[in-house]
Every structure is written in C-alpha cells, then in structure tokens.
C-alpha cells in the first residue's frame, strides 16, 4: 500500500466574476510510496504549490481526499513537515530555537529538544551557528535551518515548496546535493515542488508534470538514473533525454493554454 494517497483532489476558488469559479486543481490523483522522492514541475499557476498545501492541510479541498497511511488527513500536523520557499524562520529566535520550534509545539521537554535540534543542525552542517539569528545567515544557510526544523519533528513526509527558489544558481546545486545526501541517510518520503526541470530530474525518483488551468497531473515520468547521484549526471545523455521529454510536455501544454507569454514574462 502506498504511504500517501491523493484521491480525486479538486480545489476551486470563487472567480473574479460573481458566480464563476476558478478551478485550481482538477481531480488530481497521486500515490507515493514510503521513502520515495517525488518532484513536481509545472508552469506558474498550475497549482503545484496548492497541491502541497492541500497535503499539508493548510488548505481544504473542495472535493477528494488526502490519505496518509490509509487515514484521511484533515488538519496540519508534524507528520507532514513543510519547507518553504521564503524559509519562514522566526527572526526573534536563534537558529537552534528555530529548529526546536516543532518540538516545542509538540511539548517535548527542553533538554531533549535541544539534543534533537543539535543533531539535525549538525546534519545540515550548521552546528556552529546555533546561537546566530537568521538575519546573520546567508539564504542557503537559512534554508538549511528550515530543513533541519522540518526534519527535527521526524515527519513521515517532507513537503518542500520550491525550497531553493530564492537561492542563486550555484547555491541551488549545492543545496540539491546536500538534500540528496540527507535523504539517502534519513530515507524520508519527499514531495518537492519546483519550476526547474533540471532540479526535478536530478533529485526525483519520479517527476509529476502538471498543467495549468485547470491544474492537473498530465504525466508521471519515472527517472531511472542510478543513485547516489552527483552533479556530473547533468551532462549524461540519459539526463538530457529526461529533460527533453519533460520540456516537451510542458511546452505543449503551456502553449496550448496561451500562458506561455505570461509565464516567460514572470520568470
């Protein structure tokens, strides 16, 4: 049985005209195995982040369900930890206090909290910075804190919403490598949303390609590249082939939706 099941999940918002509705997600079905690394790509506005927020239960679906271990997900909880594009660190807390946040909310005693937080800070190589404040760190370091914070509650699924989207290209690559290293060690299920095709192929076991308005999963691409992966993979023929496949899927549906101009103007 799959660990996480997304069943006929739809979400619609009231539209700009009265009575009209905007369909953000249309009957999305996804099934994810324990320990799997799934990446989601799609054009802006295809609802890929919305899908993640529904799995986190920060949003309520209009219809359909999300099930974790065969149980309906109805409210947010530490079994599905989020990593945000804007890091979402609390500026008044030191790095270690930020990592402790989830444990603190679960009312874990402070000594144990500290121990766990330090463990994950060491994992993201920020042990030495535990008493710094977020504003004293670079973007890459802040996101490592975000990852440590998400891992500290020992979630079943790690939900990553364009986590490296705010970082520059070089740091993105380094962070991708680090994430793979951590994943290979912890074997958490990861759902990773990105608009970067390279990143999606490089990290994922499987890439879900989404289309915009309405948001749908148009294809799943299984990535049979060997692991552990490193940066040299990006120059291999198989990698390029996967990238081509996904690019073609995206290009077709982006053009079909007339969203092409808008999307390229945004990026």
């Amino acid at each position, binding site marked *: 049985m799959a660990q996480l099941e997304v069943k006929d999940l739809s979400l619609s918002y009231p539209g700009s005209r009265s009575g009209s509705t905007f369909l953000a997600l249309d009957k999305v079905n996804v099934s994810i195995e324990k320990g799997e690394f799934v990446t989601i790509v799609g054009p802006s506005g295809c609802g890929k982040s919305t899908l993640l927020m529904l799995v986190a239960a920060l949003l309520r679906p209009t219809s359909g369900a999300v099930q974790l271990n065969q149980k309906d997900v109805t409210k*947010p909880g530490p079994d599905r930890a989020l990593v945000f594009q804007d890091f979402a660190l609390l500026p008044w807390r030191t790095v270690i206090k930020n990592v402790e946040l989830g444990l603190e*909310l679960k009312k874990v005693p402070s000594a144990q909290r500290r121990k766990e937080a330090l463990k994950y800070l060491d994992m993201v190589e920020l042990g030495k910075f535990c008493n710094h404040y977020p504003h004293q760190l670079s973007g890459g370091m802040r996101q490592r804190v975000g990852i440590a914070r998400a891992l500290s509650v020992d979630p079943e699924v790690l939900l990553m919403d364009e986590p490296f989207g705010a970082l520059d290209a070089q740091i993105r690559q380094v962070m991708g490598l680090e994430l793979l290293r951590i994943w290979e060690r912890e074997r958490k299920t990861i759902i990773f949303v990105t608009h970067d095709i390279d990143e999606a192929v490089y990290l994922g076991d499987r890439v879900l390609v989404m289309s915009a308005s309405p948001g749908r999963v148009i294809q799943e691409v299984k990535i049979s590249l060997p692991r552990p992966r490193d940066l040299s993979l990006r120059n291999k023929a198989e990698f390029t082939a996967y990238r081509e496949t996904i690019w073609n899927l995206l290009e077709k549906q982006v053009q079909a939706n007339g969203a092409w101009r808008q999307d390229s103007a945004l990026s």
Partner: protein
Amino acid sequence: MHRSLLAHRLAPLIVGLLSVSLFLLIWEIAGSTETVRSELVSYPTQILSAFKRLILSGELAQNTLISLREFGEGFAAAIVIGIACGVAFALSRTIRYLFEPIFVALYTAPIIVFVPVLVVWFGIGTTSKSIAVFLSAFIPIAINTTTGIEEISESWVRALRAFGASRTQIIFKAMLPGAIPSIMAGIRLAIGRGIVVLIAGEMYVSMSGIGRLISIYSVAPDGVPEIFVLVAVVATFGYVCVLLFSLIESGLTPWRSHS
C-alpha cells in the same frame, strides 16, 4: 577605532553638555543679577537650594513615591489589559467592531475630564489616579498591539500552523513576539499620555503626589524654584521610563540590532 568612537559617541555628548552648561550659566547670571525678575523665572542655584529643602523636609520622597505607585499600578494594568484587548481585536472582527468606536472616542477625548467622576467613584486617594493613568495608557497599547499583529509576516503564522500549532501557541509564539516592536512603540506613546494625566489629575483633585505639590507651590509665595524642581523630577521620570522600555525592547528584539 578610538578616533571614530570619539567622533561618533562622545562628540555629540560633549557638545550637548556644553550647550546645556552655557544655557544654565546665562540663566544663572541673568537671574542672580536681577537682569530678569528672579521671583518669576528663578535661577539654577536657587532651584538647587529648593531641591535641597524639598529633600530635607521629606516632601519630595513621600510625594514621589505616591506618584510612582499611582503610575506603576495604572501602567502595569494598561500593559496587560492593553495587549489582551489588542490581541482580541486582531483575532475577532466582531469584538473589534463592537469596541472600536468606544476606543477611538476614549483615545481622542482628554482622559483628564474623567478625573472628577473617577474621584466620585473611587475617592480622592491614589486609586482614582491609577485608573486615570490606566485609561489614558491602555488604548495606544491596544491599538498598537492590533496593528502589530496585523502586520506580522504571514509566513511566521504559516510555519506554526504547518506543525499543527494551536491558536494559543500561534498567539504566544508568533503573533506577540512578532508584534513586539509595534507594542513597544505603543508603550512609549502611552508613557507620555500616562504622565500627563497623572500630574494633571493630581493637580486637579488629590491629597498628595508630585502634581499636588506643584499646585501647592504654584500658589505659595516664592514657590517658583520649587516648581522648577518638580518639573525636572517629572521630566526625568518620563525620560527614565522611555529609556527603560527602550532597553527592554532591544533585549526582546535582538534580531533588530544589526550591529
């Protein structure tokens, strides 16, 4: 290093001290030589001896303590209730729409007009003044708490919600810490308002306190030096209060001191 320290921190202090000393010197000469009428404006050495008299008679200590107590009680209540109201406003539109008109009315009306009624209700003692301080101080604190919470980054709340935080946890671990700069600005505003209503209230109807002393000396013959002493005491108290809360603020918001 030393040169820049001197230039940046000491120089303004030295210039400031010089200008104050020069002002005091001119005032002293003008007053003691009767260039201006000293019974009206007094002069520094006269004020200093008035200060000595007020200390030795025990009047100053006794009345200062009473004023401090009135202010302390009223202001402590204003902080607690002000923040609580501010949170309630930020969380519930219904509560906000119900009470906002009353708050705005109280905020714009001079609280001093309520003092006679407060005296009728609570007596001429310290309670009526504490309540006047509370009334004038809690509204800016409440308003600033509400705006502070409304302006916090949505991502902080989202981070807590994602971990399944309860409403109480979100209030205490995201909203209030995030609103501290705004709450502190409200408190600074409230200090000024509180002191005004305290002194005016004491001058108006009371048996004791700094304000009462001021009104006594304002009708006493040769009371001008004493009034200057009392004004200085009030000003110093306000200054110390603001300084104290600024220190508390920088202690509570270490992330804002980018040094």
